[in-house]
C-alpha cells in the first residue's frame, strides 16, 4: 500500500494510535484519580521521623517483597479490616526532586502485607529484634537481616535503645546491640502504617469471593477452628512455636500460671483481646484479638491449644464460657 511505503505516514500512524490509547487508558485515568481523591479525614500525614523511615524502606527495596494493598477479596481479609481504597493513597505525593511518588503498593507478596502492620505488630521490641535478624523470632523467615541499621557497643550510654539479641546472634560475646537512628525511624514508619477508618456512615467496599462453603461446614459441625493455625498466624511471632517466648522480650506461655490456671481466665481472655503491659521486664503486647476481630470460638481455640501444648496441663475451655467473659470485658471497656 502507498500509505505504508511512506515512512513518515507509517510511523506517524503507529505513534498516533499508541499515544492516543496511552492517553485514554493511562494518562487520563491517572489525572482523574489524582484530582478526584483526597486523603481520608482521619489520615495523619507522616511525621518527619516517619518520612525518614519511609526513605529507608524505599532505599532497601522492601517493596520487592512487601505489598501495601488490601485487595477486595476474602483472602486479603487477614491484612486489614477493609479493602484499600483510592483515598488511602491520595496523600502520597512526589518524594523529592530526584524520586517519584511511592505508593509502595507492590506486586509480590514474598513477605506479609504491611498496610496495617502498625496495628498488627505494634511492638517496638519485636520489630527491632526482627530487623536485626528475622530468624531470631521467625525461624522459617527468608527476609534479609539488616545489621547495618544497628551498632555494636561494649558499653551503653543513657539514650541508647538496646536490642535484646540472643547470645547466638551476637557478633561477639558480651556485645550489646544498639539501634541506630535509621532503625528507629524505619520502625516509626512501620508503626505509622495503620488502616484509617472510613468517615462515619461510609460503608467500606465488600470483600469478594467469600469462603462461604468452609464457614457453612464449620457451622454445621459446630467444631472449633484450628487453634494451632490461629496461634501460628497471630501469636507465634512473639511467643515462638516452642511457647517459650524470647527472654527479655516476650514472656513464655509454657508453664505460665495464667495460661494453665482456672482462676485467671478473665485476665487470660483480656490479654488475648486487649493486650498487656503489666510486666516491665517484657515488651508491651498489642490488642491482638481485637485487631484480628476474634470471636469466642477463635479465642477458645487458641486458649485450648495453648493450654494443651508444650507440657501445659490447663483444662479445656468452651466457647460459651469465653463468650460470657468477653461480654463482661466489653462492658468494662465500654465504661
Amino acid at each position, binding site marked *: 500500500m502507498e500509505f505504508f511505503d511512506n515512512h513518515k505516514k507509517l510511523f506517524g500512524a503507529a505513534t498516533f494510535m499508541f499515544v492516543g*490509547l496511552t492517553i485514554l*487508558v493511562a494518562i487520563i485515568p491517572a489525572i482523574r484519580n489524582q484530582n478526584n481523591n483526597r486523603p481520608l479525614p482521619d489520615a495523619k500525614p507522616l511525621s518527619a521521623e516517619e518520612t525518614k523511615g519511609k526513605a529507608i524502606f524505599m532505599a532497601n527495596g*522492601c*517493596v520487592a517483597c512487601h505489598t501495601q494493598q488490601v485487595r477486595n477479596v476474602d483472602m486479603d481479609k487477614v491484612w486489614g479490616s477493609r479493602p484499600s481504597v483510592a483515598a488511602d493513597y491520595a496523600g502520597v505525593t512526589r518524594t523529592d526532586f530526584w524520586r517519584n511518588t511511592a505508593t509502595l503498593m507492590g506486586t509480590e507478596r514474598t513477605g506479609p502485607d504491611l498496610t496495617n502492620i502498625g496495628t498488627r505488630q505494634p511492638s517496638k521490641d519485636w520489630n527491632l529484634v526482627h530487623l536485626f535478624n528475622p530468624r531470631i523470632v521467625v525461624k522459617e*523467615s527468608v527476609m534479609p*537481616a539488616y545489621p547495618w541499621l544497628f551498632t555494636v557497643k561494649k558499653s551503653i550510654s543513657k539514650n541508647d535503645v538496646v536490642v535484646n539479641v540472643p547470645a547466638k546472634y551476637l557478633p561477639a560475646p558480651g556485645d550489646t546491640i544498639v539501634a541506630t537512628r535509621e532503625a528507629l525511624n524505619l520502625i516509626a514508619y512501620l508503626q505509622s502504617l495503620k488502616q484509617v477508618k472510613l468517615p462515619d456512615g461510609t460503608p467500606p467496599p465488600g470483600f469478594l469471593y467469600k469462603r462461604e462453603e468452609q464457614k457453612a461446614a464449620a457451622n454445621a459441625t459446630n467444631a472449633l477452628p484450628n487453634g494451632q493455625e490461629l496461634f501460628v498466624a497471630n501469636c507465634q511471632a512473639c511467643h515462638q512455636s516452642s511457647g517459650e517466648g524470647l527472654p527479655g522480650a516476650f514472656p513464655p506461655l509454657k508453664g505460665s500460671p495464667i495460661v494453665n490456671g482456672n482462676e485467671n481466665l478473665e485476665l487470660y481472655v483480656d490479654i488475648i483481646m486487649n493486650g498487656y503491659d503489666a510486666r516491665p521486664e517484657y515488651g508491651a503486647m498489642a490488642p491482638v484479638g481485637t485487631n484480628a476481630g476474634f470471636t469466642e470460638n477463635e479465642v477458645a481455640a487458641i486458649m485450648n491449644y495453648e493450654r494443651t501444648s508444650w507440657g501445659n496441663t490447663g483444662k479445656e475451655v468452651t466457647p460459651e464460657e469465653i463468650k460470657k467473659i468477653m461480654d463482661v470485658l466489653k462492658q468494662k471497656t465500654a465504661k
Partner: protein
Amino acid sequence: MKSFKFSTARFLMAITGLFYVITVQAQNMKPSEFSFSSTSTGICFIFIVAFILLAATFTLKNKVANLRKESKRKNAEEQAEILKEQTLRLNSVQIERLLRYRSKTKSSGMLPAFLLMVVFTLLTFGSVNAQTPQGPGNGSLLSESGVIITIVLVLIPILAGLVLLIVKIRNALNQQKNRLHQEEASKLAKYLQGLPDDEVDTILKKRKTALEYSLTHHELSGTEPAEDTKGMLSINQATGYPIVAIKKKALPRPNIDPSLSKLVLWYLVCATLWLLFGTTVGEYVGIKFVAPDADHLSWLSFGRLRPVHTNSVFWGWASLGMLGLGYYIVPRVSNTKLFSIKLGWYALYLINASVIIGSLCLMAGINNGGGEYREYIWPVMLLFGIGLALSLYNYIKTIAARTTREIYISNWYMVSAIIFTIVISLAAYIPTWQNGLGETIIQGYYMHQGVGMWFMLFTLGIVYYFLPQQLNKPIYSYSLGILAFWTQILFYTLIGSHHFVFSSIPWWLQTVAIVGSMGMAIPVIAGTTNFLMTFKGAWYKVSDSYTLPFFLVGIIFYFTGSLQGTAEAFRFTNLVWHFTDFTVAHSHLTMYGIISFFLWACIYAVVPRLTGKEAPHITVGTHFWLALIGLMFYSIPLMYGGTMKGLLWMSGKPFMDGVVEMAPYWLWRAIGGSLMWLSHLIFAYNMYKMIAEKEVPDVSETAIQQLERNMGSASASIA
C-alpha cells in the same frame, strides 16, 4: 457479591497439572452430578452404533462384489485383451520363471499353476469374532477423583473396542480384495498355460532382453579418472568429535562495512557482558531465598540487588542486544548504508553509562520509589532515553534513504518499538500525573508496555528478518505480520493495569485490561502461525542448523508464555497466582524463553557473518540445552509452588505456611538458575570464539608464506 466458584477452580487445577488434581482435589471432595449408569448407557449406545456400522459395511461389501462379478462376465472379449497386456507387464524374473515352467510342462504334460494362489491363501484371514472387553464398573459416586479414574477406565476399553472395530473392517475389505486377486490370478495362469510356443519365443524373450537392459555407467563420464578442474568441491576433513551431529557452517557475508560490523559487534559484546553481570546477580538473589544470611552487606541485600538484576538484564543485555541487531538489520533491509556510525557509538556509550550508574545507585540505595523496572532515578533513565532517541534518529534517517520502495516489516516493528518506548518513558517519568493512585495506574501501564512494546515488539522485528534468512525462504505471510503489528498496538496498550487486579484502581480499568489481555491472543496466534508456517517445508533444516533450535524454542515460548499471560489476567486466576512466585516464573518464561532465546538465535546467526569465525558447535549445543533445561527447572517448580501457595492463602492458612511450603521450590529455582547461569558462561565463551579467537594457523598457508618470503629475500639479495 461473588461466591467462590468451585467449577472455575476445577478448570484451573486441570491446567496446573494432573498430579495436582489428584492430590488437592481429593481434599475438596464434592458430590458430583456424574452417575455411572448414564456412562454405561453411553457405552451401550456406542456399541449399538458400532455394530450397525459393521453390518452396513458387510452388506455394502457384498453388493459391490456382486456388481463386479456381473460386469466381468459381460466383457469376456475385453478380458482377453487385458490378459495379454498383463503378460507383457511381467518383469524379467517372472518371464524367466514362466519360460522355465513352460519348458517343464512341455516335457511333463501338465501342472496346476497355484503358486500365487498359495500366497494369497496364506494372506486370507479367519472369520471375524469381535469381543470387546468390558470396563471395570466400580467407581465411587461421591469421590471426584474416583469418578475421574472411572471415566478413564471406562474410556480405555471403548477406545480399544473402536480400534479393534477399525482393524476388523480393514481385514474384511482386504479379504474381499484378495479374493478378487485370486480370481484374476487364476485366469491369468490359465491364459499363460494356453499360449502357443512361437509367441513365447518372439514376444517374451524380446521383452526379457528389453527389461534386462542397463546402462554401463560410463556413457557420460567416460572411463577417465575423476578430476575437479573447476574447484567446485570442498571436502571438510576436520569433522571434530563424533559425539555431536555436524551442523552446517555459517555463510560468510563479505560486503559489510567493517565500521558497521565493529559497531554491531560492540553492541553484542556489551550485551553479553550485561547478561553475565545481570544473571550473576540474579543467581545470587535466587540463592538468597535458600540462604538468607549469605551476607550482611547493605549493598548486596536482597531488596537492592533484585532491581539491579532486572534492570541490568532489561536495559543492559536485552536492550543492547536488540539495538545492536537492529543496527545490522535496518541498513540491510533498506539496502543502503547506516546513516551515522558515530551516533550509533554515542548511543552505545549512553546506554552503558545508564546501566552502570543505575546499578551503582540501586546498590547504594538510591532509587526512584516503588515501581518495578522504573527503579532508576530520572537522570539515569534520561541517559538511556537519549541513547534511544539517537538510535531512533539513526534508524529513521537510514530508512528515509532506503533504495527499496517498501519498508520491510522488521523496520515497522523495530522503529515503532523505539518510538513507543520513548513515549512510555516520558509517561512514566513526567511527574504531572503521578500523585496517589496516578502513580499506580502509570506503573501498571509502564511495566507492561516496557515488556510488550519494547522487548517483544523489537524482538519480533528482529525475528522477521533473521528467521526467513536462516531458513532461506521468505516469511510465510506478510499480511499476518501486519495484522499482528496493529493488533499488538491496539490490545497491548490496554492491558497494563492487569498487574493491579482487585486493587483500588478503578474497576472499569481492570476490566479493560482483562479484556485486552484476551485480545492479545490475536497477535500472538497470528505471529506464531506466521513463524511456524515459515518453517513449513524446511523442518529438515532444524537438525543441521545450530540457530534454528533457538528460534524454535523462542516461538514455542512466544505462544505458550504469552497465552499464559492472558490466562493469568483473569480475575479468578489472579486470586490464586497474584503476589506469588508464579509471576516470577511467568516473567522468566517470557523474558528468557522468548526474548533471550530469540536474541541468541540471531546473535549466532549474525556474528559469524561479521567475523567469519564460528563458535564450536558442541559449545553452542551445550549453551542451548543448559539454558532450556535450566529454564524448565526454574519455572515449573515456581509455578507449582506458587499455585500451592495461592491455594494456602485462599484457604486462610497462616502466612508462614506459604513460606515453609515454598522452600523446596526455591531450592529447585536456585538449581535451575545455576544451569541457566552456566549456559551464559558458555555463551560468553562462544562469543569469544566467534570474535576474538585467533585463527588456527593453516599449515599450507604458512608454507606458501615461507616460500614467498624466501623468494622475496632471494630477489632482494639479487638486487
